[in-house]
């Protein structure tokens, strides 16, 4: 086991050259406080467009806190300082319409949380709230979203059934379908498969790989196989700091920071 005090200075954070890589989202000196205690102290990351970036790290390392700050889900429980840059805008500033912003940066949670409504309504509801009322348009989007989430064939005859009657894996894919129905740019996923069995997990992973063509995906995961299977880039969090951020292949075969090595080889966390 490595000595933490010696190795916390070690860091290896990859920076993209914007000329070669299109950046969908980036954070600059992001700091998150719960009351007075600091949960995230330095979060400087860039996320490339149409790639899957995984955030890994032990429990309490701040990866979920960081993720939830990106679309300001933490606003009510924490203080978030620093910049979150999206399309040249700092979306962490006060004059951003948070509700509008979240239509561009969608989120799927750890536990499947479908609404107590029908499968159809789970997807159509948010669209209707934004003034889309034509049945034909709604039908089309519901079908497309369910297809993209790879569950259309399973539920196409049961669209009016309650979403709560679905299995956990189907519920989670419905939540993904619901999130992509409003056509966000970026999809944030907070351990989306941790409550699922292995078969459902691999279905969700296939869905994500499929979605990568059209969405920038940032995913928090506890499961290192999952990170290595689906992600292009991986960030390693420890004690509220990003210690290493690199291509997933490099992180898992040739980590530059000792703690990263310890974590991925299962020595702690």
């Amino acid at each position, binding site marked *: 086991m490595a000595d933490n005090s010696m190795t916390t200075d070690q860091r290896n954070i990859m920076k993209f050259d914007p000329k070669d890589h299109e950046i969908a989202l980036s954070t600059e000196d992001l700091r998150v406080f719960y009351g007075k205690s600091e949960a995230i102290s330095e979060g400087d990351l860039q996320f490339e467009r149409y790639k899957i970036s995984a955030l890994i790290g032990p429990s309490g390392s701040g990866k979920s806190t960081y993720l939830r700050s990106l*679309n300001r*889900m933490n606003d009510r429980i924490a203080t978030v300082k620093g910049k979150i840059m999206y399309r040249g805008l700092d979306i962490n500033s006060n004059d951003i319409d948070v*509700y*509008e*912003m*979240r*239509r561009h940066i*969608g*989120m*799927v*949670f750890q*536990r499947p*949380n*479908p*609404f*107590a*409504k*029908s499968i159809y309504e789970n997807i159509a*509801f*948010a669209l209707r*709230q*934004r003034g889309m009322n034509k049945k034909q348009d709604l039908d089309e989007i519901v079908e497309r979203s369910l297809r993209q989430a790879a569950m259309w064939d399973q539920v196409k005859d049961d669209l*009016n*059934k*309650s979403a*709560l*009657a679905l299995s956990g894996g189907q519920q989670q894919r419905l*939540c993904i379908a*619901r*999130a992509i129905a*409003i056509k966000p740019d970026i999809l944030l996923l907070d351990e989306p498969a941790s409550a699922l069995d292995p078969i459902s997990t691999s279905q969700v992973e296939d869905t994500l790989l499929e979605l990568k063509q059209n969405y920038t995906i940032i995913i928090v995961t506890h499961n290192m196989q999952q990170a290595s299977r689906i992600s292009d880039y991986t960030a390693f969090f420890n004690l509220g700091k990003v210690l290493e951020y690199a291509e997933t292949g490099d992180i898992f075969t040739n980590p530059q920071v000792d703690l990263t090595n310890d974590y991925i080889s299962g020595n702690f966390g």
Partner: protein
Amino acid sequence: MNAKRVDKIATGILYGVAGLVVIILVALLGFILVEGVPHISWHFLTSPALAFEAGGGIGIQLFNSFYLLFLALLISLPISLGAGIYLNEYAPQNTLTGLIRTTIEILSSLPSVVVGLFGYLFFVVQFKLGFSILSGAFALTVFNLPILTRSIEEALANISDDQREAGYALGLSRWETVTKIVVPAALPSIITGVVLSAGRIFGEAAALIYTAGQSAPALDFSDWNPFDISSPLSPLRPAETLAVHIWKINSEGIMPDAKAVSAGASAVLIIAVLLFNFLARWLGKRLYKHLTAE
């Protein structure tokens, strides 16, 4: 003694205690129903009460009870819903909201006779509403608000935060999330709470004696203009309810069949309250089923 034996004895005692409660309740209910049901007839349920002769009914009192219940719910439901939503969805956790919660708790344990006397001084005397349906409905609102607010707040609190986050993550505002996701999901338990509180209101007597009054003047059921004093809908007429009627007959009734009228009225009251309870369960279950599966 070993653990297994202690467990057996404890189980026995618990069964005994539970059995005792059931026996007392069944005996009480049985007594009221056996005494009262034979006296219930269509005539009894529809004709007006008679003060000095036998053969009077409870028609007007029954109507008054339902009308007061309706008015009390009409006033208290929107206020409770708003207060419950505020307390659970909007209020920050601080001393002020803590104080509000404590106040509501104290109010909900206020003896109903105190509510009645307050209603008398405030609505009847101060606001010059007299002994009237309106005074009674306001007193019942005071009586009902804290209980209903708490039950609605609890119903909302039982909805997981996951649901709210799901709404926010789709770009819905807090208002949209509360009104379109949280309240609908909590609807089964809210409705159960409303119907149960309706049962309490229906059986309430002490809060009404000094507010809705103890007389039931004859009503003209062909006149539905609420501004006519003899109209059933008139909010300013005095209105003795079923529960108040039972209390009055037993304290000063001089009709020859007072005992039978009282027994019949009690049975009707109990049956109505039971129906409210069954209705609450049935509605709650049905709505829940409707929401969770087809």
